[in-house]
């Protein structure tokens, strides 16, 4: 472990984020859409419509009815009198959670894809491998940059999301309804776990593909399970409560550990050099 080199590599990779529009732009736009535009649209639309008149509400009402009475969510929902309140509460605190998870995953994927495949594309990987830095430190520095950025984006997104909900929702609730305990678990446990998973996936993909574009396209595969999670939840298959999130984060870490164990072979300078440079 070469701490000085790890710091230098992480710093350099983070600085390359702002200089690449391809990476920088989605990192600004995606959190804005997910954390400001979506919740704001939902709250404003609900505030100014009478949902009791709206049609197609049955599936959601069914979910509300099917909740076990002793669950936190059922108790919370029972405290609201209006259907509008119940829906906003349900959507923003539960249904949007998987979508929020996409923000750090996207960030981690973009930075990781850029830092490994991009290094090869710019033909700088060679001079990096010629440096007297052990291969583990080299990988760790790069992964650290992606991880720090993912966590930064998640925290930034969390704050934006909270402000949007609590400010726009105040007239309806007369109190702050965000965050609930499940979001804290999401932020401190699931976000790091899934960021690590996304980074490892991108490292593995980058070692196989030719350039940043290709690596980036492959990272869709990390996003798919999250979309699946979102849809299953809306269909009422399960509710993302605290217990579920602890399990989800644990699962992510477990898969990461397995992946890391499988990837030990990549931590070989000669193999990496031959697969990447030639």
């Amino acid at each position, binding site marked *: 472990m070469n701490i000085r080199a790890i710091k230098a590599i992480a710093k*350099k990779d983070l600085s390359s984020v702002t200089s690449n529009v391809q990476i920088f732009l989605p990192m600004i736009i995606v959190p804005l859409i997910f954390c400001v535009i979506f919740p704001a649209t939902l709250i404003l639309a609900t505030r100014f419509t009478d949902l009791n008149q709206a049609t197609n509400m049955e599936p959601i009402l069914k979910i509300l009815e099917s909740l076990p009475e002793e669950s936190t969510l059922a108790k919370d929902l029972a405290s609201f009198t209006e259907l509008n309140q119940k829906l906003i509460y349900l959507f923003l605190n539960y249904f949007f959670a998987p979508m929020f998870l996409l923000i750090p995953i996207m960030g981690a994927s973009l930075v990781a894809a850029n830092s490994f495949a991009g290094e090869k594309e710019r033909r700088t990987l060679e001079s990096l491998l*010629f440096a007297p830095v052990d291969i583990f430190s080299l990988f760790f520095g790069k992964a650290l940059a992606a991880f720090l950025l993912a966590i930064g984006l998640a925290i930034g997104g969390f704050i934006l999301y909270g402000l949007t909900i609590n400010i726009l929702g105040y007239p309806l609730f007369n109190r702050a309804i965000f965050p609930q305990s499940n979001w804290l678990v999401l932020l401190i446990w699931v976000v790091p776990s899934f960021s690590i998973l996304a980074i490892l996936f991108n490292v593995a993909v980058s070692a196989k593909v030719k350039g940043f574009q290709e690596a980036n396209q492959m990272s869709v595969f990390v996003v798919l399970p999250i979309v699946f999670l979102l849809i299953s939840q809306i269909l009422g298959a399960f509710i993302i409560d605290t217990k579920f999130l602890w399990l989800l984060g644990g699962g992510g870490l477990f898969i990461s550990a397995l992946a890391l164990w499988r990837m030990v072979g990549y931590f070989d300078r000669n193999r990496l050099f031959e697969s990447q440079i030639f």
Partner: protein
Amino acid sequence: MQQIIKAVDVYKSYHKEPVLKGLNLTVNKGQIVGLLGPNGAGKTTTVRLLNGVIGPDKGQLEVFGLTPEKSGDKIRSLCGVLTESAGLYPHLSGEQNLAFFGELYGVTKKEVRYDLLKDFGLLEHKDKKVGSYSTGMKKRLGIAKALLPSPELLFLDEPTTGLDPEGARDLLSYIEKLNKEKGVTILICTHILKQVEELCHRFLFLDSGRIIEEGTLEEIEAKYLKEFLVRVETDVSVSNISSSFQLITHTPGKLTFKLSNKSDIPILLRHLLEKGSVYSSEILGRDLETMYFKIREAGR
């Protein structure tokens, strides 16, 4: 003399394509050695193997008495390498690039960076992004980067490509100074023979993955120069010259003779001086390039 680099019967192939086929070479401490050969001969592969970033399929390698495969980081910390594509980060400035690589090599002093930027005429461009540098500036920064760790051994892979004649001359004289003043051992891979002819102490001719000839220019000349073409600037007319000297061409004032021995040259000159004046004389075809073609021809 202490051997710094040693390769014994080294084989290496990429994707089943053989690149090195029994490479044997040595480089002694304090020398500037030219590794010459056509594109694809295996020059870059040799540098990579010696730095331990790739491993040989067969054979032994030693750098500073260490095995590159086992002690790569130790070797790399003592070596400076200029790769063919300088390998710099375009989004960072010149100074930031040196600072970054300095961290990797454990050279964090600002003065070291500034001295190198100054030496290579880049001090006033230090804050510009490397992406906006010209090819020559990138190359110069690449060499500055290679010199960051004050290496004992310097590998330069095609150091002058992309440099204008002035830039190339400055670089070569810098390399010479580095060798003379600091005793840095230098291995230069190139196919631009003219530039390194006077710089290198020894030459290694690499062709199809093997060293086909090596030695000083004098040694190689003695081996391959079987006849001497001598051009003389003189006012002696052709009809006055003894027929024992084989005259090849003659233009007004300039005569070219073919001699089979170096020792025949003073005899010829004495003969000409008896008949008239001699202004200059030179042996033709003794430059590195001619040797290079003779060696490659002999190797076939």
